């Protein structure tokens, strides 16, 4: 199992958000995690990436057999975990190309691989740019600064394409995207699908799943996975709404 989460409980500022979450993600699988606002979807994504401010009070998170909880965000990244942010952060004054190169080389260095020189890097980034239909001009600008919503999301997918993670977590990547951008972003994700790479799609809407076909769909409500199924579950949710599950949530 690539990712194994058992009975995960976590709180923010003393408030319990995750209340015993279980999730198993195998290599090559695409899992969609759906759920109403405030159910803990983004918290889960951030905890997996190692963000400060969350206290894990119980349970375990194993990534390829290794516990993630004690690892720094950069250590998780170099082991192959990637989070595409719902709200990508603007970094004024930090050149996008420079940032991408620093990120790739930092990961390579951490894994004991040789760093890429500027020429090799530019060649590589040009290939990846084409994959996500991103304007080359955006490489010369500060990271995300003044980017449109769609450009920011493309920049996330560009980073994912460049860093080639083993587990990509996409946090509401579809939010705020028009249909063209959604399609480009989805194409980028689909291009990366492979037997040894897994994806967790965190989303509120079923729409993204028309473009990226999940192997499994989970519903997160009240800090737990309350139901799991195949992509049919997403359709059912679309038809009936999350209210349909709330009764079961109480019962579970």
């Amino acid at each position, binding site marked *: 199992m690539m990712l194994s989460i058992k009975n995960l409980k976590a709180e923010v500022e003393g408030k319990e958000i995750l209340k015993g979450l279980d999730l198993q993600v195998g290599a090559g699988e695409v899992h969609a995690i759906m759920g109403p606002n405030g159910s803990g979807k983004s918290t889960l994504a951030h905890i997996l*990436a*190692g*963000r*400060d401010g969350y206290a894990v009070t119980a349970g375990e998170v194993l990534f390829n057999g290794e516990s993630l909880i004690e690892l*720094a*965000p*950069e250590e*998780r*990244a*170099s082991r192959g975990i*990637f*989070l595409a*942010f719902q709200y*990508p*952060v603007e*970094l*004024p*004054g*930090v*050149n996008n190309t*420079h*940032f991408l190169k*620093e*990120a*790739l080389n*930092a*990961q390579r260095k*951490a894994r004991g691989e040789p760093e890429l020189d500027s020429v090799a890097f530019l060649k590589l980034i040009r290939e990846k740019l084409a994959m996500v239909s991103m304007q080359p001009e955006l490489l010369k600008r*500060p990271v995300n600064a003044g980017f449109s919503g769609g450009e920011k999301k493309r920049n996330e997918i560009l*980073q994912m394409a460049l*860093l080639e993670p083993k587990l990509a977590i996409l946090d509401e990547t579809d939010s705020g995207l028009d249909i063209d951008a959604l399609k480009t972003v989805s194409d980028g994700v689909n291009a990366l699908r492979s037997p040894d790479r897994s994806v967790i799609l965190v989303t509120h809407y079923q729409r993204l799943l028309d473009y990226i076909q999940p192997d499994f769909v989970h519903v997160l409500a009240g800090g737990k996975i309350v139901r799991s199924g195949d992509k049919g579950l997403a359709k059912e949710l679309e038809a009936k709404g999350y209210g349909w599950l709330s009764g079961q949530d109480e019962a579970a």
Partner: protein
Amino acid sequence: MNSDTQTQHDLQGILHLGQKRMATGMPDTDWQSVTRQRGTAGVAAMARPDRKQEAWRYTPLGFLDQAEYQPIVEGPFDALQLSDIEDLMLAEPPAIRLVFVNGYLASGLCSMAKATSGVVLSSLAGGLGEVPAALRQQLDAIAEHNHVFAALNSALMSDGALIHLAAGARLDGPIEILHVSVGLEQPGICHPRHLIVLEDGARAEVIERYCGLGDGTYFTNALIEVSLGSDSELLHQRMQEESVHAQHLSDLQVRLGARSRYQLTLAALGGAWSRNDVRVTFGGEGATAQLDGLMLAGDRQFNDVHLVVRHEVPNCTSRETFKGILDGSGRVVFDGHIVVSRDAQKTDAVLSNRNLMLARSAEVDTKPQLEIYADDVKCSHGTTVGELDPDMLFYLRSRGIPEHQAKQLLCQGFAQEVFDGMANPALRARAGKLLAARLLESA
């Protein structure tokens, strides 16, 4: 004897010792005697600043009691070869480069492109031939002795670049003025004095750098006069990269003619103690001044900028953006003062000071002031003091960039807005590298 008399004696001691050593005579510099006399009188009349004076309230001067500075009044210091200062050179050295070592021109290290029509490059001590009358007359025409150090500079001025562009003259590439200080057995104090005069419609780019070779203790006390004629333009890029034990004081005084454009980019990165006084006076309508600066105060560094912009005539624009980065026990002082006189209607001025604190133990004292006597103006100021944004740090770390490297990237990004104002790419690159290196040393 109270302490004031004692310390006054110290600066006067420097003056007397310097004058005694100088007395052996440089006959071709008699034209400077009026300036020197004015300086001497100023030193005698002015006390060493103390905390009772607003402009020095936050500037510690205790270091003056720690070392007995020996005035360096003899040049040239010709022991250095180009290979010795390789690390201090820009990656693409400008075709015109005037190198001063311990305050005096080092001819062997200079590079002089072929003469451009209307451009005169000279040196105060005569190392580039006799100083033309046009420059002699302009020396000391602008300088005010706002403090005793400026007076001391006038009295003991060592050497410096004298640059004159005739009306309409244009220089394509930059002129670089490079100071190299070599630590001596006893800490030295030198008094570089530069003069840049652009007549009407002239245009030039000047790079002015102060470097230390090794990590000696010394005191650079510089004064720079800049005079811009109507419709002229000067890109003035200054970088203070002194040794970590050095004291550096620069007093830059600028007078702007009608419709002239002055762009100053200052990177004050080095030194244990650094103070930059910048005084810009608008003397003709329609002129523009863009003044940007980056102050680094790493652990045990003190970095001070005092800015006075005087809008004395109507329809002038000024933009002032100064940023501080502080770490460890570093201290930044920023005093930005914009004065808009009664006649200066339609003045447009925006003053900003932003500070990035990397450690709680650092300290910043910032005081932006607008003093406005006209009634139809557009003026504003803003100040921020903040820490690194945790969201930005997490974003970088989530991409695999280790924490210390992420902090560095963000600091460089913060400084980049200022460095981007440097027209010279090699200088811009050097500023970025130097900042990274100093941040690393400080961490």
